[in-house]
């Protein structure tokens, strides 16, 4: 199997190289048979990479320790499910997994564009193949997944215990899917620049890819946060660690991109900006891999240094300089005659939304690389911790939330004052009322008051929008309210799906603010039978039970949780000890309610029966996950096939005059 895997990767590389030549030749000389041949080569490349993946999986599942990768990241006692996930548990495997996803997405894009977009699709496929060549080159020459051990060990070193939980099966694939699928819109953007076909064909063609990528980046970030929350045992879910930042920056840029392309579709403006954003989003996915793999920036959960840094940096430099060069080369052709007309217009709101998103992304970037910069400039490594990121992102998030309320309700081009009053009176009252209620309830932190008021304001604007739409349908089509609501969303899925995402963002934002400002913590060392309290809860330590198998030892503490003298539940935080690695780990006990999470960590045990607990009471954190779920649902609604849109694309692709996709007087999302 290892030989097969190695061979498959070598052939895949050759096929990728061939497909570039065949695509470019076919497109330049108008030989469709060469373009078809290139397409088949990409499909064959995908098949080859799939064979390599299956070969590595076979090695992992059969515990073939002659493979260095298997010996390093698996063991005979590792549960089967984690042998599967060990594919992306190590460096070589995760690069192979990345390449696999890339080859699958490339094949799908090649299939979808086999008959349409004949001007730019061959070049987009060539760009995708170029990216694949980089990764296949790494797999063939630099960090090979099928390297053999000099001496075959009887047992493997096992997967890191922190990776041995079900999030390992969910989080990395989501994030990678998000990262890798951003390559497709990037490739079409680059192809538009290469060919000079600079209208919005590339945007329309890849709109779903961009949303798909955003969907998985959103999920990837949320799953990562949830993983940190459940597994790492420090009571929080986000630490602004470089690894987290690396996943957060592409998300911010993709969010900006998804909003700004709407301006180009409607107003034919911001062409350069959109091309720059998609270039930036792709570059950040490579940058993320660079900083996590190179050891240039130290991260607490570091993916220890490896020699990959220079290769990724080199690739990054090629991508950024090449793409920037193309943008400059096409600058004149990209000039757009349209201009902003009023601050009170939707395009202005979108422009400022973009500035703030990119502002946050830049701040995150700056804070992440600050140690490297300060060392280069001043000779001392200076780090900025979470307070820096919170102080910059906090105020900007408020600005974004505000614009989220304003943008969708004001018209394109300009809005009249009477219109403003009509749209915003009710939401503004809701916002102020929420602020007053919060103040009366004893909240004093200005940030919390502002955040909750703005959240109520935005929810108010969305309610106004839904009411308007439902009202119009009931009035004109005599539909019942529920039917009108369903049809409204179904017929304008881009717009109303977008609102659902916005509701999700607001809900998640409230969860983030609540959990950041109102978290309380108690650390206590107790003997069996002793009690202590946090908030309204009393916790009584009932005792310890032990469990052992071949793979790990577990010590589980039982705690009786009561509230107001009434027993609510029993919770069981545990300490694990992984035998192979001689490494302890923590199993957190969480009781989640919409009001607050009770989060118990068994922090320590000593010989004379004393147990130390670290307990967090985190209000509203439940809503972060609930908001994430709403965002996911909204995104599915947005991506749902829309008959009208398909017709519009078909017309546009056939080369007719540009057609408005939505056919709606003021489509938002």
């Amino acid at each position: 199997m290892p030989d097969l895997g190695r061979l498959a990767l070598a052939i895949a590389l050759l096929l990728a190289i061939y497909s570039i030549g065949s695509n470019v030749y076919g497109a330049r000389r108008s030989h469709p048979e060469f373009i078809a041949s290139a397409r088949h080569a990409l499909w064959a490349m995908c098949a080859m990479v799939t064979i390599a993946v299956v070969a590595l999986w076979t090695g992992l599942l059969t515990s073939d320790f002659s493979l260095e990768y298997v010996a390093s990241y698996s063991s005979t006692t590792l549960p089967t499910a984690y042998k599967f996930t060990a594919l992306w548990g190590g460096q070589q495997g995760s690069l192979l997994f990345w390449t696999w996803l890339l080859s699958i997405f490339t094949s799908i894009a090649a299939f979808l564009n086999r008959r349409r977009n004949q001007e730019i699709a061959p070049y987009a496929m060539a760009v995708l193949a170029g990216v694949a060549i980089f990764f296949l080159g790494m797999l063939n020459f630099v960090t090979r997944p099928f390297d053999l051990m000099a001496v075959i060990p009887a047992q493997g070193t096992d997967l890191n215990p922190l990776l041995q939980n079900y999030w390992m099966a969910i989080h990395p694939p989501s994030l990678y899917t998000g990262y890798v699928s951003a390559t497709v819109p990037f490739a079409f953007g680059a192809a538009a620049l290469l060919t000079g076909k600079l209208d919005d064909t590339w945007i329309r063609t890849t709109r779903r890819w961009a949303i798909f990528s955003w969907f998985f980046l959103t999920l990837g970030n949320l799953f990562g946060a949830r993983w940190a929350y459940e597994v790492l045992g420090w009571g929080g879910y986000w630490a602004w660690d470089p690894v987290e930042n690396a996943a957060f920056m592409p998300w911010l840029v993709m969010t900006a991109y998804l909003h700004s392309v709407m301006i180009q579709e409607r107003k034919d403006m911001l062409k350069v900006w959109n091309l720059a954003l998609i270039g930036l989003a792709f570059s950040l996915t490579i940058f993320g891999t660079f900083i996590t793999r190179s050891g240039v920036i130290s991260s607490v959960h570091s993916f220890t240094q490896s020699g990959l840094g220079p290769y990724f940096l080199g690739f990054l430099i090629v991508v950024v300089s090449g793409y920037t060069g193309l943008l400059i080369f096409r600058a004149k052709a990209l000039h757009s005659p349209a201009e902003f007309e009023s601050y009170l217009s939707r395009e202005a709101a979108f422009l400022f939304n973009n500035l703030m998103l990119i502002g946050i992304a830049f701040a995150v970037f700056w804070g992440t690389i600050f140690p490297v910069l300060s060392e280069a400039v001043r000779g001392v490594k200076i780090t900025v911790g979470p307070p820096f990121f919170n102080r910059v992102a906090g105020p900007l998030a408020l600005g974004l939330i505000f614009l989220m309320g304003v943008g969708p309700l004001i018209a394109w081009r300009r809005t009249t004052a009477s219109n403003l009053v009509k749209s915003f009176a009710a939401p503004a009252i809701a916002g102020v009322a929420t602020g007053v209620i919060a103040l009366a309830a004893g909240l004093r932190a200005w940030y919390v008051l502002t955040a909750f008021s703005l959240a109520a304001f935005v929810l108010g604007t969305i309610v106004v929008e839904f009411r308007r739409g439902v009202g119009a349908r009931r009035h004109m089509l005599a539909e019942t309210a529920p039917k009108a609501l369903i049809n409204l969303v179904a017929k304008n899925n881009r717009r109303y799906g977008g609102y659902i995402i916005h509701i999700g963002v607001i809900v998640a934002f409230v969860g983030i603010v609540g959990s950041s400002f109102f978290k309380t913590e108690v650390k206590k060392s107790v003997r069996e039978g002793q009690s202590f309290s946090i908030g309204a809860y009393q916790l009584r330590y009932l005792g310890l039970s032990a469990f052992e198998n071949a793979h790990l030892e577990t010590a589980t503490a039982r705690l009786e949780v009561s509230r107001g003298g009434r027993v609510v539940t029993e919770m069981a935080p545990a300490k694990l000890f992984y035998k192979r690695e001689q490494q302890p780990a923590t199993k957190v006990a969480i009781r989640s309610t919409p009001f607050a999470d009770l989060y118990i960590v068994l922090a320590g045990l000593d010989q004379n029966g004393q147990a130390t607990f670290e307990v967090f009471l985190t209000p509203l954190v439940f809503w972060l996950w609930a908001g994430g779920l709403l965002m996911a649902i909204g995104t599915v609604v947005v991506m749902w096939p829309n008959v009208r849109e398909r017709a519009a694309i078909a017309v546009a692709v056939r080369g007719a005059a540009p057609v408005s996709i939505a056919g709606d007087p003021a489509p938002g999302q």
Partner: protein
Amino acid sequence: MRFRLRFVIGTALVVGAIVYLITTAIRSTSEYYLTVNEVAARQTELVGQPLRVAGRVKPGTISWDPGTLTLNFGIVAIPDLNADPAVKTVSTADPASYTVTCAGEPKPDMFADSRDVIVEGKLDATGHIVATQVLTSCPSKYKPAQAK
């Protein structure tokens, strides 16, 4: 054109505000990130400053009191594996080491003799580090300890 200018001004104001936020936040939240040897080299000027120190737990120095959640240990410099042996003449004398106290935090799971740690806290006048947090860089399996 009037509007174009007004937009440029508006955009510049937003960008300016973002830059202002970043610079002030950097100024008020930055900490030195130093190795044990770097701390030793500039000890006097660092007293009382917020620090992050990267070092290695000195074997046999760990004492942990679970009752008061107090952790005491010593840290030494992380040996530089990439150092050129020819240049290695400077610091053969007494290797720098510091004692660390961290109270009120549970002991991290990975904390053990000879593990690499990052200590966050302040240096007091006697050359003792009072830590608010001890982070273990996890011995991630992304590159195993030379299994070859």
